[in-house]
């Protein structure tokens, strides 16, 4: 099938999800004023946030996979998420409760944690043979494990209430009220996705390998620095606000690649829309499956996405052979 048809299908589906999700499970017995308040102040912002976060995670994951020629490379594998989580855990542990331009202390520390981790991983990988993807990935994984242990330690030393707060943060959540957080996150995510779109040709060549990219004229190192830092900042901002929502960044680009092929001119917008729609769907399931209680959305993304991904993988293997 032509990419344009597949893309249109993805775009249409995401749009339908975006438009219908806020109404899902909205009780009709409530009086109209309360219902419209819930819709405008809770449901719509939440769907929008899910869309932005999903789109950002998917596109950043796509960039990492292309840059490092590794299907498992995501900003999460490179320790950005664990750095952010450690920041948030420390904020809870030390009982910090200040706010800075309306951003609460946990988010702020998470963002600082994410940026510190990127700089640290990047700095470490500079030793030896420069900016090699393998070294960077391994450094990221090592740092990730180290920080995970520190998070566990922080949790162990906390009292029950704080420990639960940390755990809840680690599971990821999209519950917001009002639009302030959206206005903070939207510019960063839009800017980074826009930047990634500029680099669609370079990303195509990078998937073909560094040597081919260089001989076609891509300044591989420069492009990689730029994309590495900008996507990491984007991920840092997302994780700081919503916690580490796993799997979207790794899985959505893969699914899109299986559906639409390797060309980033289609792959970037497709991942963006698919990621957005997918996360709204996951969030809708998360809040309605055992209503009135809520399942952490991170749990749902993995539960829904994992089997679907496996099915797609097996299907494409049997189709090819």
């Amino acid at each position, binding site marked *: 099938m032509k990419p344009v048809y597949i893309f249109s299908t993805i775009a249409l589906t995401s749009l339908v999800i975006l438009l219908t999700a806020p109404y899902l499970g909205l009780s009709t017995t409530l009086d109209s004023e309360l219902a419209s308040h819930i819709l405008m102040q809770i449901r719509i912002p939440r769907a929008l946030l899910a869309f932005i976060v999903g789109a950002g995670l998917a596109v950043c994951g796509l960039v990492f996979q292309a840059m490092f020629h590794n299907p498992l490379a995501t900003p999460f594998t490179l320790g950005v998420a664990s750095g952010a989580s450690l920041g948030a855990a420390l904020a809870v542990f030390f009982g910090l409760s200040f706010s800075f331009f309306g951003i609460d202390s946990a988010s702020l520390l998470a963002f600082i944690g994410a940026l510190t981790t990127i700089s640290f991983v990047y700095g470490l990988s500079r030793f030896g043979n420069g900016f090699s993807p393998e070294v960077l990935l391994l450094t990221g994984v090592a740092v990730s494990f180290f920080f995970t242990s520190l998070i566990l330690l922080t949790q162990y030393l906390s009292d029950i209430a704080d420990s639960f707060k940390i755990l809840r943060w680690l599971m990821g959540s999209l519950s917001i009220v009002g639009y302030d957080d959206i206005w903070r996150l939207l510019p960063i995510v839009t800017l980074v996705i826009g930047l990634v779109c500029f680099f669609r040709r370079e990303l195509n*060549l990078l998937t073909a390998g560094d040597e*081919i990219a260089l001989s*076609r004229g891509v*300044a*591989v190192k420069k492009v990689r620095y730029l994309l590495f830092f900008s996507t990491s900042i984007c991920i840092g901002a997302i994780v700081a606000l919503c916690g580490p929502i796993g799997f979207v960044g790794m899985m959505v680009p893969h699914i899109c690649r299986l559906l639409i092929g390797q060309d980033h001119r289609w792959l970037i917008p497709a991942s963006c829309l698919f990621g957005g729609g997918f996360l709204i769907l996951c969030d809708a399931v998360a809040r309605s499956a055992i209503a009135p209680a809520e399942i952490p959305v991170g749990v749902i993304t993995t539960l829904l996405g994992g089997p679907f991904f496996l099915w797609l993988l097996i299907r494409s293997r049997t189709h090819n052979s």
Partner: protein
Amino acid sequence: MLCTHHLTVEFAQKKRLDDINLQLEPHDYLCIIGPNGAGKSTLLKTLMGIVSPSSGNIIIADSPLEQLSQRQLARHLSYVAQSHNQHLNFTVAEFIKMGRYPHHGVFSSWETADQTAFDNAVALTQTEAFLSRQIPTLSGGECQRVMIAAALCQQTPFLLLDEPTSFLDPRHQVKVHQLIQNLNQQHQVGIIEVTHDINHAVQHSQQILALKSGKAIWTGQATDFLASPHLSEELYDQHFVLTKHPETGQQIALPSEQGYSR
């Protein structure tokens, strides 16, 4: 014009290339020969900006290499690597079209000049028949032609080829040799080719550069190479017998069954 002055490349405390001096015009055809690990591939990669030189200069069309952006460099040189990533999930057409990258800005679209370059590259390499196929489904010979087509799409005055026929059967070897010959003679593309085949180098190229342990031990007209009888033995640490090609009468070297002892 492509020149190197005292080009030296060092990594892991070892000199891979030592004081290499070259001068090539866009109609030249240079073959680089030498034993494994002599630095042949390193030389091509250094020219292409994949490996950085530790000292010496590379001058391309009057500009030093370090002053050229990678994109500018890719308008002068194109490169076909030795082994290919068979997992390139692109169609042949998509992949060849990516060769136009150095001629494009962020906002530019596919224009007539691009289409002409693409059509020429496809016609020269005879890849029309499998344009819509996925690269992993190609045979070795087809794949090599696609790689050359993608490099030709760059429309550069020089083409660097790293052992372009090593993994091909005799029929496809001859086809690729003819293609390179044709590019050089009919289309004035400067060729720098790394090869293990002394006879191919002597028969088809104009100049030969013999590398051993990173040093240029001989450079000159291709036809003169076999005239100095001990040259190939010194180069490869291996005895050769010289004989005449029964068909063309040209002198050829065959590795001797006797080993080699200094």
